[in-house]
C-alpha cells in the first residue's frame, strides 16, 4: 500500500508539473504579443525576436547552471560555505534526461526554466525600440538564470537559509522574482535612456502610441492565463506531511512544505486579479493598457502571501498595490525621465517589493516552514532569528520579509542592473545608433511586416498580372 501511494504521488507530481510548464508557455505568447503591439511598425520584428529568443537563451543557461544555483545555494553562505557539485542538476547529471529512476527532476527543471524565461521577458518590454539585441541577451542571462535564482534558493525553498532563519515568506515570488526583474530593469533604463522624442525639451513626456493596441490587450490576457500555471508550479502538489509513524496526512503544500489548499489559492488569485483590474480601470479612467496591467499589479502585489490570505485581504492588497504602481509609473517618468515602454518597473518592481513587505505583516506569526520527509524540508539548527513558534519552527515576521525583499530588489535587481547597464553602455553595446533607431530596428525588413500596407503586396500583384497577362 505504501509503495502504491508513493508511486501514485510520484506520477501525479510528474504530470502536474508537466501541465504547469505547458500553461506557463502562455506567458511568453502573451509577452511577445504585448511587446509587439506596444512597438511601432518599424520595430515589430526586432521586438518579437528579441523576446522570443530569450526563451532558448535563458533555457540553455538554466540547463548549464541556473537550476544548479537554485539547489546548491540554498544554505550558502549561512549554513554552509561549500557549494555542492552533485545536486543532480549539473548539466552532466543523468537525472535531467530520460531516466527511469528519476521522474521528477526534468519537469521540476522545466518549471524553473520557465520562471527564468519569465523574469527575462519582464525586462524585455521596457527596453524596446532602442536596445541592441546582444545587450538584451546579456541582461536576460543575468536576470533569467542568475539574479532571481539566488534569491529563490535563499528565500523560496523550504531549506533556504532565509526561509529558515529570517522566516521569509514569498509563496508566488513577488519579491523573489518580480521585484528583482523590475528593479534590474530600472537599473538598466538609467543608462539606456528614453527613446528619441519621448520627452519634449521642457521634459514633458509624450505618449508613443502602440502600433496595435489589440495585440497589447490580448497579450496581457495571455499572461493572465500563464499566471495560473505560474501559481500552480509554485506548489508541491501532493505530499504526506505527517511525522514518521503518525497517521498519513496527504495535502498540497506551498514551496515551504506548509499545507495549503488549491481551492483557497484559486479564490485568492481571482480576487487579487479582480481587485487590480477594477482599481486600474478606475484610476486610469478606463485606459485599456492600465486596466489589463492592473490584473498583473493586483496579482503581483498579493502573490507573496496568496497561499494563506483571505480572498478579501488579497483584494485589498491588490487595490493598494495597483494605485501605487499607477502613481509611481508616471511619477518616475516625469521626475527622472525614465522611459519604461510597458510599465514593467512599476508593475513588477514596485508591486513585487510591496507584496514581499506586506506579506511579512499580514502573515506575522505563521510558521514559515514545515519539515517533513514527504516534502524533503528539514529543520536547521538555531532557526528563526526573529522568533519561533511552540514547536520550534521559524515564523513569518515583517522584519524577515522587509530584509529579504530589500536585499532581493536592491542587491540582486537595482544595483547589478545599474552596473550591467553601465558596463554595456561604456562598451557601446547597449543602445543602437540614432540612425538605426530612426530607421527602425527592423531595418530593411520594415516593409515585410505589413506587406499590404507597405506596397509589397501590390508590387507582387503587379508581377502576377503581368505574367498572367491580365
Amino acid at each position, binding site marked *: 500500500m505504501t509503495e502504491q501511494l508513493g508511486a501514485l504521488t510520484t506520477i501525479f507530481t510528474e504530470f502536474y508539473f508537466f501541465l504547469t510548464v505547458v500553461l506557463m508557455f502562455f506567458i511568453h505568447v502573451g509577452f511577445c504579443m504585448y511587446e509587439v503591439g506596444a512597438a511601432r*511598425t518599424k520595430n515589430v520584428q526586432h521586438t518579437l525576436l528579441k523576446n522570443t529568443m530569450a526563451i532558448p*537563451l535563458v533555457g540553455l543557461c538554466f540547463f548549464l547552471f541556473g537550476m544548479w544555483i537554485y539547489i546548491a545555494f540554498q544554505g550558502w553562505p549561512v549554513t554552509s560555505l561549500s557549494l555542492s557539485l552533485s545536486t543532480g542538476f549539473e548539466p*552532466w547529471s543523468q537525472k535531467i534526461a530520460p531516466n527511469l529512476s528519476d521522474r521528477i527532476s526534468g519537469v521540476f527543471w522545466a518549471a524553473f526554466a520557465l520562471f527564468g524565461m519569465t523574469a527575462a521577458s519582464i525586462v524585455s518590454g521596457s527596453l524596446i525600440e532602442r536596445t541592441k*539585441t546582444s545587450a538584451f541577451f546579456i541582461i536576460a542571462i543575468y536576470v533569467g538564470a542568475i539574479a532571481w535564482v539566488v534569491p529563490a534558493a535563499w528565500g523560496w525553498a523550504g531549506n533556504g537559509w532565509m526561509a529558515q532563519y529570517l522566516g521569509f515568506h514569498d509563496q508566488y515570488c513577488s519579491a523573489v522574482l518580480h521585484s528583482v526583474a523590475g528593479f534590474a530593469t530600472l537599473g538598466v533604463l538609467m543608462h539606456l535612456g528614453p527613446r528619441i522624442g519621448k520627452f519634449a525639451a521642457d521634459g514633458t513626456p509624450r505618449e508613443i502610441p502602440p502600433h496595435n493596441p489589440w495585440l497589447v490587450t490580448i497579450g496581457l490576457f495571455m499572461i493572465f492565463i500563464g499566471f495560473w500555471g505560474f501559481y500552480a508550479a509554485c506548489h508541491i502538489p501532493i505530499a504526506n506531511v505527517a511525522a514518521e509513524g503518525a497517521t498519513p496526512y496527504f495535502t498540497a503544500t506551498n514551496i515551504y512544505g506548509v499545507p495549503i489548499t488549491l481551492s483557497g489559492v484559486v479564490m485568492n488569485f481571482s480576487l487579487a486579479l479582480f481587485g487590480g483590474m477594477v482599481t486600474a480601470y478606475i484610476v486610469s479612467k478606463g485606459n485599456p493598457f492600465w486596466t489589463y496591467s492592473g490584473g498583473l499589479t493586483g496579482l503581483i502585489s498579493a502573490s507573496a502571501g496568496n497561499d494563506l490570505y483571505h480572498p478579501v485581504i488579497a483584494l485589498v492588497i491588490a487595490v493598494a498595490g495597483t494605485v501605487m504602481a499607477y502613481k509611481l509609473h508616471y511619477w518616475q517618468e516625469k521626475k527622472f525621465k525614465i522611459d519604461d515602454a510597458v510599465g514593467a518597473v512599476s508593475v513588477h518592481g514596485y508591486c513585487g517589493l510591496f507584496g514581499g513587505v506586506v506579506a511579512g505583516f499580514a502573515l506575522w506569526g505563521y510558521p514559515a516552514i514545515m519539515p517533513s520527509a514527504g516534502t524533503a524540508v528539514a529543520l536547521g539548527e538555531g532557526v528563526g532569528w526573529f522568533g519561533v513558534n511552540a514547536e520550534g519552527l521559524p515564523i513569518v515576521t515583517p522584519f524577515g520579509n522587509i530584509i529579504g525583499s530589500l536585499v532581493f530588489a536592491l542587491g540582486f535587481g537595482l544595483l547589478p542592473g545599474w552596473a550591467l547597464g553601465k558596463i554595456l553602455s561604456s562598451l557601446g553595446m547597449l543602445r543602437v545608433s540614432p540612425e538605426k533607431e530612426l530607421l527602425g530596428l527592423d531595418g530593411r525588413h520594415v516593409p515585410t511586416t505589413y506587406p499590404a500596407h507597405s506596397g509589397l503586396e501590390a508590387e507582387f500583384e503587379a508581377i502576377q498580372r503581368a505574367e498572367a497577362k491580365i
Partner: protein
Amino acid sequence: MSTGITSVANLADLAAVYPFAGYEWLFTLIVVGFTLYFIAAQISMDKEESAEAVSTTIPATPATTIVPAE
C-alpha cells in the same frame, strides 16, 4: 548509435535509457559551445546591422491627416 539496453524485463534495474550514457561531459561541452556561438553570432549580427543603418537613407513615415467625420 545505441542505448546499450536490449531488454526491459527488469525495469527496477534500469536508470539512464539514452544513447551514449556516460558521455554527459561531452554533451555539456556541446551545449556550452552552442550557447557561446549563439551569443557571438548575435553580437556579430548587431554590428552588421548597425553598419547597414548608418549607410541607409532614413525614409520618413508619411504622416496621416485625420479628416473629421461630417
